[in-house]
């Protein structure tokens, strides 16, 4: 059973704070993604990575950065959090052959 674990389920931060969202997977998947989920906007891709130390911008990368130092770990960083980054963040891994995605439970971030 694939496990995608996000370190924090709920976070509350202040504007300007640096925020780290950590994600670990145990299935040796090469592809990992960070999405944000907002009502009425669906899931939007922030960044993805298909190998260690590799990263690609998604559709809404502004204000975010990522780190993939190890295959199983993919971190999302908000250098200076803003209120419009209040959202649910989903870490996802993907099987290369089938394209099937596996989702973490999500991290709900509130920026005050």
């Amino acid at each position, binding site marked *: 059973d694939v496990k995608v674990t996000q370190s924090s389920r709920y976070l509350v931060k202040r504007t300007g704070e640096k925020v780290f969202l950590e994600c670990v997977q145990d299935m040796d998947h090469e592809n990992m993604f960070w999405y944000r989920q907002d009502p009425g906007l*669906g899931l*939007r891709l922030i960044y993805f990575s*298909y190998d260690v130390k590799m990263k690609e911008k998604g559709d809404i990368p502004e204000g975010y950065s990522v780190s993939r130092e190890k295959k199983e770990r993919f971190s999302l960083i908000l250098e200076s959090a803003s209120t419009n980054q209040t959202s649910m963040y989903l870490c996802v891994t*993907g099987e290369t052959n089938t*394209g*099937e*995605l596996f989702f*973490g439970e999500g991290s709900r971030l509130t920026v005050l």
Partner: protein
Amino acid sequence: AQRVTQPEKLLSVFKGAPVELKCNYSYSGSPELFWYVQYSRQRLQLLLRHISRESIKGFTADLNKGETSFHLKKPFAQEEDSAMYYCALRSSQGGSEKLVFGKGTKLTVNP
């Protein structure tokens, strides 16, 4: 550009009625399409992929390349089908692959 459109944000049906969640896509390549579902307080999970042509929980979806659609259908809706449904398109970008999602349809099945 790749795009997935789910025209209905909300869909409400009665138990036992047929249900169809619409999905249209635009993609210049050969499409691979998926339906993902998120039940209340649970993580997103795969429901169907068009390649496998299977029926899961009574749901089916047929890829219609002429109409560029991948609508999700169930002949008799159940209350436990109430959930958020996302249609997704697998696309290639510079040698790497990603999924593009529609904005989702919230299905409510009333007793």
